[in-house]
């Protein structure tokens, strides 16, 4: 490392520290946040200080919020959701005139409408323990697909961000095995409307053994050679959420 790189690294660490401590204010703070969005190492330094300084907090010391504070939060969340619903006709009108925006608009609608919440209720996810979670991100760190899986339900729920497919393409979800490093297919997914995957026993075992999950774009019907293509959309670690072994 050169002298100037060393100095930059030291300055960055000092700035990351002051950002977390809270003494970086005003324009310096805004500039630092912009820089952090483009600089993974800076984000790491911030996360490291956040984790370390978190131990200055005393979680036992509390101050009860006002009784109506939760209602205020609910209102704010539901108002945002409602205004997203109200914007639907406008978006649909654009969809009618601009068919090439079809995929993007559908994704936006998916993100904001309440289908996911309905799905939660219809599929009973709210009552089920979630065993595994993976947030798959693109190369530039944007979330592309979040997946949670429940062993009790033998299901995986999916939440898609902006993902596009050509007409003759499918997505394919892969598990990278923790045990032997092999990559095996969990499912071929026709499009990003798919919100729930029913998992067979074998597929559930792949999820349980997965170190990470990959999402690729394949020819329609899935990879003909049962290996992921080079068209990798996103990847993410598969994290186990519960301590109890749910090996049923």
């Amino acid at each position, binding site marked *: 490392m050169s002298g100037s790189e060393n100095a930059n690294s*030291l300055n960055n*660490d*000092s700035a990351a*520290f*002051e950002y*977390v*401590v*809270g*003494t970086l*204010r*005003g324009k310096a703070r805004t500039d630092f946040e912009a820089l952090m969005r483009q600089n993974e190492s800076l984000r790491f330094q911030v*996360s490291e200080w*956040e*984790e*370390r*300084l*978190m*131990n*200055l*907090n*005393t*979680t*036992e*010391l*509390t*101050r*009860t*919020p*006002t009784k109506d*504070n*939760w209602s*205020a*939060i*609910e209102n*704010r*969340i539901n108002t*945002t959701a409602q205004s997203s619903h109200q914007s639907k006709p406008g978006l649909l009108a654009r969809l009618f005139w601009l068919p090439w925006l079809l995929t993007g608009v559908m994704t936006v609608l998916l993100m904001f409408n*309440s289908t*996911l*919440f309905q*799905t*939660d209720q219809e599929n009973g*996810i*709210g009552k089920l*323990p*979630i065993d595994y*979670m993976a*947030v798959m991100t693109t190369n530039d760190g944007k*979330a592309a697909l*979040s997946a*949670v899986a429940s062993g009790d339900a033998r299901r995986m*729920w999916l*939440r898609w961000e902006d993902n596009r497919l050509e007409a003759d393409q499918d997505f394919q979800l892969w598990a990278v095995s923790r045990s032997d490093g092999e990559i095996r297919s969990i499912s071929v997914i026709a499009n990003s409307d798919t919100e729930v995957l029913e998992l067979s026993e074998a597929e559930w075992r792949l999820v349980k053994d997965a170190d990470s999950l990959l999402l690729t774009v394949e020819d329609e019907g899935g990879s003909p050679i049962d290996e992921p293509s080079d068209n990798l959309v996103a990847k993410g*670690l598969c*994290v186990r*959420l*519960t*301590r109890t072994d749910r090996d049923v």
Partner: protein
Amino acid sequence: MHDQDALIDLLARCALKDQQALKQLYERLSPYLNRVAFNIVRSDDLSNEVLQEAFVQIWNNAGDYRPDKSKPITWLTSITRYRALDRLAKEKRHSENRSENIELDSVHAENSSPEDKAVHGQQQGDLLACMKTLNERARTCITMAYIQGYSRDDLANKFNTNVNTIKSWLHRGSKRLKECLDQKTQIA
């Protein structure tokens, strides 16, 4: 102590827009997070508003949370602290309130109770031990800024010095703290 797995589970459900999960998260953590916000903004009205902003952000960004990158309680606390600092900047009333006699968390980290130390475990023990290696001014600056949201100007007033001196104390304090914590991590 908040069970880490349970919090991750609730955040995962929030990412899927399960409002009940957010409510459970709120019921578990709002008294603690409200305290964190109150220490910085020093007003019950403002801390309640900060809490609202923090939970709306948690709801919107739960899908961005990465369990492999930070503990859930750290992620949630950071969101609340940053929203409180934003609110502080907006209100521009921090300095005026400095002399108010409000009960705040101690700025002396070494005063944490043994129970609390046990809860946070080894990592907190390491941090507190490393904080003790700093000189008293640097240690106080760091804790007052982190816990109570003191700006460099506030600290300069408090210590009757100039802002550059405060920057230097913070810079040297962070460097020393990092060296000490890195050393402890290597030993562990």
